[in-house]
């Protein structure tokens, strides 16, 4: 028994000694206090303030737990694999179960303790009115079950994957499938129904019942139920039983498959596509050579990051296909009858590419320096006769070169829109009295410009924050940046608008720009420091 719990005990002891544990708890409680103050200030003009406050707390927890699944929980085993220390652990008396308990269950305990520490403070919501003790306790029970499910789902991904990035992607994929899978299934069913391939008869009813059962397992469904006015049900629910059962199932699978996936120590070098034609390779097969990196460009850093960080030519080719097909699939799912106009296709491609571009930027921001740091290659780059800032910009450009399918399809979307509105455009252009500046001035006012600049500044701030955090933390930079930005949006922005009124349309963008510039210089200094420390 001692051997079984040895690692688990050690992890708990380490957690209890670490300052970060107490900072995280203090930060969380402070956040709840800020939310309480905001609720107290707005008590005069919102109904059921206690319920509003508690709903905000629960949704914040829900978001952070989901983000923790992608980082904190999913790196439990992969971090040992990446450091090549899992083999050393296995050489000791520790069996797979004790490693799983020590590496993952201790993290689960930390998560549960973070929830428990909030409870006394959130109970104050009752005094604001609009919420009962049962609702609060039932919500926390639902959250705890969700944490248990998610930590074990991430543990399974961590056992199966060779690297933390892979584990995070697998956890994210399975989580999206769990949270939104029933919507996708319904969409696919409606398309198939529209195409006449299925009929909703008895089997359809069974499927419908299955989808309803799936929905009941979701924490969001349970929160909707618990936080509705007059809830007085049980603390326990099918969602709790279901989440606990799924958590146990994933833990069991992780345990059963541990030996298979973690038996050999694997090289954690990032994978790449490298086509090597043999002496007998001819014809189309040898054409795959085109996907190799080839000779370094004059702009060597751009070449390197395009091929070895953004994925290179093969990834670009795959992206091009995916970005063309996925929005089209989405259109089909959303509009089963397929009677869309040209401009609707244009809008879909245009906006989906905006979202994709943002997602690509975010992923790249998290990886752009992390890879260099992990492989201790910053010092070699820092020795080049260029400044560290120029080096960073060239790396960014390398990543942007990898985004050209996104730009291309975005332009295609614009073209579709132009084609759909060609007659109007020609009419406007042929008007001799047209005045572009006047037309623009009619459509924009200073608040609109301020809001637009604010959104752009927020995106830039967010990307800089991801880069900055990726240089400070081994994992979890992206979820942490999402959390910080989300909190800023939740608390700082409404507070600024409330206290400053229309002036906030100028003040907020300026504050974000200042924060971005600050982060920009901090990143430069940090890079120089890391290069010197390697």
């Amino acid at each position: 028994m001692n051997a079984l719990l040895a690692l688990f005990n050690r992890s708990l002891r380490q957690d209890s000694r670490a300052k970060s544990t107490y900072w995280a708890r203090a930060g969380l409680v402070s956040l709840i206090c800020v939310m309480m103050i905001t609720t107290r200030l707005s008590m005069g003009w919102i109904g059921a303030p206690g319920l509003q406050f508690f709903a905000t707390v629960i949704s914040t927890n829900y978001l952070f737990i989901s983000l923790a699944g992608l980082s904190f929980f999913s790196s439990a085993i992969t971090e040992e694999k990446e450091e090549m220390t899992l083999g050393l652990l296995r050489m000791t008396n520790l069996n797979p179960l004790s490693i799983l308990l020590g590496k993952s269950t201790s993290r689960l305990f930390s998560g549960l303790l973070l929830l428990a520490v909030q409870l006394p403070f959130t109970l104050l919501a009752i005094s604001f009115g609009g919420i009962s003790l049962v609702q609060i306790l039932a919500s926390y029970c639902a959250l705890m079950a969700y944490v248990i499910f998610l930590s074990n789902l991430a543990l399974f991904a961590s056992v199966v994957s060779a690297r933390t990035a892979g584990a995070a992607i697998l956890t994210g994929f399975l989580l999206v499938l769990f949270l939104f899978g029933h919507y996708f299934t319904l969409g696919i069913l409606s398309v198939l129904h529209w195409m006449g391939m299925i009929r909703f008869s008895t089997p359809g009813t069974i499927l419908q019942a299955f989808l309803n059962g799936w929905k009941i397992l979701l924490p969001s469904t349970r929160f909707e139920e618990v936080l509705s006015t007059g809830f007085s049900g049980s603390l326990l629910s099918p969602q709790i039983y279901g989440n606990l059962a799924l958590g146990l199932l994933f833990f069991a699978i992780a345990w059963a498959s541990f030996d298979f996936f973690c038996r050999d120590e694997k090289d954690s070098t990032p994978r790449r596509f490298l086509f090597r034609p043999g002496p007998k390779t001819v014809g189309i097969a040898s054409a795959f050579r085109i996907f190799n990196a080839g000779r370094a460009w004059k702009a060597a850093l751009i070449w390197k990051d395009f091929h070895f960080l953004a994925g290179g030519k093969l990834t670009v080719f795959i992206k091009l296909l995916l970005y063309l097909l996925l929005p089209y699939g989405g259109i089909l799912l959303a509009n089963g009858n397929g009677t869309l106009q040209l401009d609707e296709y244009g809008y879909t491609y245009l906006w989906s590419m905006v979202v994709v571009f943002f997602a690509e930027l975010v992923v790249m921001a998290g990886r752009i320096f992390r890879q260099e740091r992990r492989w201790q290659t910053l010092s070699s780059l820092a020795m080049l006769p260029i400044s560290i800032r120029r080096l960073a910009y060239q790396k960014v450009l390398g990543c942007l070169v990898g985004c050209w399918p996104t730009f291309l399809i975005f332009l295609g979307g614009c073209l579709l829109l132009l084609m759909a509105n060609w007659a109007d455009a020609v009419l406007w252009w042929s008007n001799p009295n047209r005045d572009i500046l006047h037309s623009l001035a009619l459509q924009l006012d200073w608040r609109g410009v301020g809001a637009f600049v604010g959104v752009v500044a927020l995106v830039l701030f967010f990307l800089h924050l991801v880069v900055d955090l990726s240089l400070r933390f081994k994992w979890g930079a992206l979820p942490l940046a999402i959390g910080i930005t989300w909190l800023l949006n939740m608390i700082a922005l409404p507070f600024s608008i409330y206290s400053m009124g229309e002036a906030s349309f100028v003040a907020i963008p300026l504050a974000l720009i200042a924060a971005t510039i600050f982060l920009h210089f901090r990143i430069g200094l940090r890079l120089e420091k890391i290069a010197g420390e390697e």
Partner: protein
Amino acid sequence: MEPLIQIENLRHIYKTHAALSGVSFTVHRQSIHGFVGPNGAGKTTTLKILSTLLQPQSGSVSVFGQDIVRNRKQVRRKIGFMPDHFSMYRQMTVFEYVDFFGAAYGLVQAERDKVIADVLALTDMDGRKNDLISGLSRGMQQRVSLARVLVHDPDLLLLDEPASGLDPRARIELMEILEELRRLGKTIFISSHILSELATLCDHVTILDRGKVKYTGSMSGLISNEQSEVATYTLILAAEHPEAASAIAQLPGMTRISPPLPTSPRYTLNFERGKLPVNTILQTALGNGAQIVGFHEEFKHLNQAFMDLTEPGVRP
């Protein structure tokens, strides 16, 4: 010889720990200069400052007569730094890796083709140029790392523990490459723990301990006993000769003569350098009818010199 690196009173502190406390030494052009010291002596900090990765907190450092802080970019073009860790893009092939750094240093493709062929031939990696770096052994990765350092043809090579973790063959081959580089006119500043190899490779050496220079100068000066008042010589005779040995023992200034080894007539002589000229010893031996086969001064081993100069224990 013309100085290439000049370090004057260099100090560097990490928080409360003084890594370098007034380090001064000079490295001459086209020499192989060894840099030796126990763990934590400040060797890597010095190398990082020389390679412009760290800024000196006080003191002055000039390379090629240029201050490394004010002329960082120019200095970087002329130096190649190989750190003590394998910082490589392991998912690249050998050729891609060297080609990338060639392009990053601004070489056009035609130049790169020639340079890459040369450096891969020098490091004997031309047969493995299409292999992924992740699949290479440690010794081969070290060669690729050296090829990368050489790709922009630097005049000064800064090598931090280049032989650590290599097997004996790989170490010997690396040392051969370094000797070849010296013949090509490069200056090499090398930090290492493998003293025996440094003793044969380096013409100059600096010993650093606890952030302070304990010795800097020629390797022969360190391992010979020139500075010592008592000289140690070995006299080898054709056959054992007690009369000659007795006569030598009577000479003024002779402090000790060891008896011959059981297997060979080899005598170790200790005498005061100022009082007894070596010619007198030889004349005495010959005058007593001994046949001299060999006579030479005993040098200290670098290990011994290192142990004499550095303090025992771990730096606090």
